[in-house]
């Protein structure tokens, strides 16, 4: 008992140290460029973790999740501009709308086979984008079609800034997205340990067997879809407030939807750490190749994405989280000086 509890202690210590580093990072790394990179990193990690609730746990392949990011961004911004509603509240409204929309789309499509579901999410996502691009106004709300929306700058006192969800420097944004990420990870972890988590994973793997064990698989898939869409919309609001500008071809694009799916898949769908790891590994690659290579070789980062995707699917279809976990366990072994009983 002593040896394995030593291992556990080291594991916990490492995790606390990691958390400590992440939470105190901005205090000793003040470069706004790097902070921005990290913010985007956490942003993607958050989104892929939310995506994972459907794409990983439910075992389906949603390829149109950018629509829900867009719903979040547009809802909170439009409410802010028209009624002065704080984007924090608008965020929740956006989440609810996204959940409802997700359910409306999900109920008929989640019954379909894998590829059909994927196609329908694609069609839906593109449909939303086209719809928004063609719409200048919905009632009193300015949508502005293809040009997108600029969030009006309203910087004032710190209290006002907090209300308006707008800050002069990057620091608050860093912590907001970090907290959101922690919440998403926590929700994922929690859900996987309770009955709905077991049920949805079972339903994803062997729907017929799950049904024979009393699980209304479709109902659970819908639940998780709604949850995922709800949380995804929060990221839309965050993005709107961070960049103060968004437009359909960016925030509602197929590329964006695919990127979320890719990252989660490469990292490891269905696991808790997988999507985060995927984001941590792929985003820097994408960013650096875009920054340094795109002038010379546009599209190279996408070629790399594609290659990585193929290689991972060929050799590690369950994602990179698997070999990385083994590596981490190996490190734990070395540090605690004993071998953990290996799961068959």
């Amino acid at each position: 008992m002593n040896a394995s509890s030593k291992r556990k202690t080291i594991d916990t210590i490492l995790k606390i140290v990691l958390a400590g580093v992440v939470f105190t990072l901005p205090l000793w790394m003040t470069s706004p460029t790097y902070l921005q990179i990290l913010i985007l990193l956490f942003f993607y990690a958050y989104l892929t973790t939310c995506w994972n609730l459907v794409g990983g746990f439910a075992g389906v392949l949603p390829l149109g999740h950018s629509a829900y990011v867009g719903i979040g961004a547009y809802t909170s911004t439009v409410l802010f501009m028209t009624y002065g509603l704080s984007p924090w509240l608008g965020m929740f409204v956006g989440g609810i709308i996204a959940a409802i929309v997700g359910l409306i789309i999900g109920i008929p499509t989640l019954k379909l086979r894998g590829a059909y579901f994927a196609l329908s999410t694609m069609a839906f996502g593109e449909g939303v984008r086209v719809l928004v691009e063609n719409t200048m106004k919905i009632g009193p709300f300015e949508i502005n079609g293809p040009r997108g929306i600029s969030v009006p700058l309203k910087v004032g006192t710190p209290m006002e800034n907090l209300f308006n969800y707008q800050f002069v420097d990057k620091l608050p944004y860093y912590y907001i997205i970090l907290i959101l990420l922690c919440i998403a990870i926590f929700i994922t972890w929690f859900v996987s340990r309770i009955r709905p988590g077991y049920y949805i994973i079972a339903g994803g793997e062997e729907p017929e067997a799950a049904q024979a064990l009393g699980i209304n698989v479709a109902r659970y898939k819908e639940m998780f879809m709604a949850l995922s869409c709800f949380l995804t919309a929060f990221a839309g609001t965050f993005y709107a407030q961070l960049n103060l500008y968004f437009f359909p071809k960016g925030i509602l694009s197929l590329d964006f939807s695919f990127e979320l799916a890719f990252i989660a898949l490469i990292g490891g769908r269905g696991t808790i750490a997988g999507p985060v790891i995927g984001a941590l590994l792929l985003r820097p690659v994408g960013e650096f190749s875009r920054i340094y290579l795109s002038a010379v070789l546009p599209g190279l980062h996408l070629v790399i994405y594609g290659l990585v995707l193929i290689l991972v699917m060929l050799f590690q279809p369950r994602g990179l989280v698997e070999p990385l976990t083994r590596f981490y366990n190996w490190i734990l072994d070395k540090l605690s000086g004993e071998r953990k009983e290996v799961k068959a």
Partner: protein
Amino acid sequence: MEKPGPFKEPGLPRPNKNEVTMDVIIQAIINGILTGSYYGLAALGLTLVFGVIKVINFAHGSLLMVGMFAAYWIVMLTGWHPYAALILVVPMLFIFGYALQGIVIKPILEAQRDVREPTEVIIVTTGVWYILDNLALMSFGAQYRVVQTSMSGQIFMLGDYIFPKAQTYGLITTIVTSGLLLWFLKYTKMGKSIRAASLDRDAASLMGINQYRVYNIAFGIGAAIAGIVGCVLIPFYYVFPSVGVVFDVKCFIIVVLGGLGSIPGALIGGLIIGLIESLFAQYMASTWTELIVYVVFLAVLFIRPAGLFGEKRDW
């Protein structure tokens, strides 16, 4: 992901949006049929691959793009007529498709033998799509290219109605190609093997049919057809690296509409989409017709996922 479409819009000039007369409708129908025929041809390869290998090939659009670029460069370099270039394009694309299936898709199918429709294949073909499209972007640049042929701008007239030459030849090509394909599947040994494998993978392999060889060939044929589409399109369609994306989504819609695996379904589905686009374009901007197509697609998925001619399964 723009869709500039063909650079020649055939049709009678319409001075007033309200003046949608019978003539205009008929011309729109003609346009729709001509467009729909090459949509259907484009979707043919996808439905064949799905019907046989039971995988959704997300790289299909990229294959079309490759076909178009292959046709483009051959015509530019040799000065041949695009239809003459078929001699080179078709075998090139066939080999390309054969190799692609063998290298990238086959290992996944082997690893996932019991899963009927592994999502990994969707993911891998998406990776192929990204790679192909962006390699094209890196190699050729994003500009829209155009090829001048003897057919450019030429039209046939039938009464008051315009039949652009290139598209009309396209319609004929579609008919001929589908006919050849159906004949091949029905009467040749390899064709029958393909059909057998599509009905039941394992049973077919018990009959001595090399399952993977059949898949390679089916995929090769799908790619070859993409090559044919390339030759058909370059006289009147812009060539650029992301041209495949437009067709990709459209082909999926057509294939679902017509029924995955059904050749007549792909053709009729193509016609339907072509007609919808053409007719609705008389009443609204083309960006809205895009939306109509998506709505139709979702409606089909909800009401009859098997499509018009597909097999009724528990989709």
